[in-house]
């Protein structure tokens, strides 16, 4: 029987439609090296990108997932974990990202708001502990800039680094 612990989430990943890593956070040492992590991500993507089935067992882990256009969202936990808890985190991640991207859940928009999505994931899970799973609380805590919600800021940010 699974240990009663707050450490519930092993990883959160957002991959693109080639299975490339956009954002990944691994919270324990199930996959100690970047190489092993990326191998797992590739494997996961190959097994899930065609079948929109929401849940899969892979390498003895439970992975729940959702996708839209060219983005794939994954939440990963132990095979003993309550699958519905994992799904509550996945739904929160998806909902929050969708709000940040103003319902434009696609790669291009993700890059325009990458900072906010990093901050959001940091508010959802803290070192493997589910910190908050309510999308509206997360959005409050991420404290989006007023204009983040109205127009993309990518064009003016790109000027500075050139």
């Amino acid at each position, binding site marked *: *029987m*699974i*240990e*009663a*612990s*707050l450490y519930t989430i092993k990883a959160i990943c957002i991959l693109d439609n080639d299975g490339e*890593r956009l*954002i*990944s*956070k691994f919270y324990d040492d199930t996959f100690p090296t*970047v190489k092993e*992590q990326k191998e797992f991500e590739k494997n996961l993507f190959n097994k899930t990108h065609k*079948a*929109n*089935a*929401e*849940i*899969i*067992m892979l390498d003895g882990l439970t992975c729940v997932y959702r996708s839209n256009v060219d983005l794939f969202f994954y939440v990963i936990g132990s095979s003993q974990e*309550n*699958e*519905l*808890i*994992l*799904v*509550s985190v996945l739904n929160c991640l998806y909902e929050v990202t969708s709000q940040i991207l103003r319902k434009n859940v696609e*790669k*291009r928009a993700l*890059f325009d708001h*990458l*900072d*906010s999505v*990093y*901050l959001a994931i*940091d508010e959802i899970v*803290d*070192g493997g*502990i*589910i*910190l*908050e*799973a*309510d999308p509206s*609380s997360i959005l409050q*805590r*991420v*404290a*989006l*800039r007023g204009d*983040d919600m109205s127009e993309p*800021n*990518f*064009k*003016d*940010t*790109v*000027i*500075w*680094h*050139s």
Partner: protein
Amino acid sequence: MMLRRDKKDEEEGASSNPFQGLEKSTVIQEARSFNETPIKPRKCCHTLTKIMYVLNQGEQFGRTEATGTFFAMTKLFQSSDVTLRRMVYLLIKEMADIADDVIIVTSSLTRDMTGKEDLYRAAAIRALCKITDSTMLQAIERFMKQAIVDKVPSVSSAALASSLHIMKQNPEVVRRWVNEVQEAASSDNIMVQYHALGLLHYVRKNDPMAVSKMVSKYTKGGLKSPYATCLLIRISAKLLEKEEYRDASPLVDFIESCLRHKSEMVIYEAAHAIVNMKDTSARELAPAVSVLQLFLSSPKPTLRFAATKTLNKVAMTHPAAVTACNLDLENLITDVNRSIATLAITTLLKTGSESSIDR
């Protein structure tokens, strides 16, 4: 000029990933601009995002590189831009283990942690606890105790979660905060309650009497949070493993009562616990199997998966208890989710009879 060139690049759509091919050395170079005054929040924020991206892609920073970038970053505390400050906190956590002398930001973080801005406080606590070592822990102890019982849920949760991380290295310090943690456990906020209960349990883990007292207190009611309730079910099930006369145990009553909870998460956790108990009797299994049977026809794939997986387990020890679900399981043989279909088939192999062959 530059502006025009960038726009053109973008229109041509040279790459759909503007961060593609970003070099570590470029972003390290760019971080030097953090020293410029006045600080341009948007520009700096974008640079921090790039550093984050490069780190997240798995690039290794050398000690010197990381430390240089970290120190440049500390200059950004002069700006009061909210997003920029939050990105700084995030990067502090990311770089805490790869840069030297990260304790340099202690006073800045302590100031933000005790300041007026709630959005800073919670995030500052988490960053501070990440860089704090055992010698400095005493200095922030007072603030941590205050934060644990703070009225703002994000602050309280941040302090509780950070305390649990700290427990790994410094259990004796966190043990002194148990009164505050207990107070937080009666919070109205569902996450604060969950984090407080999790920390309380961890603190008392090696003292079965204390765990048992804690469980009997909360099983009598008072938990609003479905997450906390799931945790309490798990703790109860662990305690039951050691009990000799389970029949009369109030813990069994508690777990069974959770089968009628309004949250599916809790119902499933309870059913799962009952199924996995040692030497479960057919009488104990029956109510758990009935709720799992209901889940089999849920439109949510995860719920169908969870139920099939758990019934599969029951079928190994008590095939007779699952036969009532055979019709529902047969419907799942063609489920779009192949894992569900496979689990349904293997379960049926254990419970099926001649009558099902015709169908």
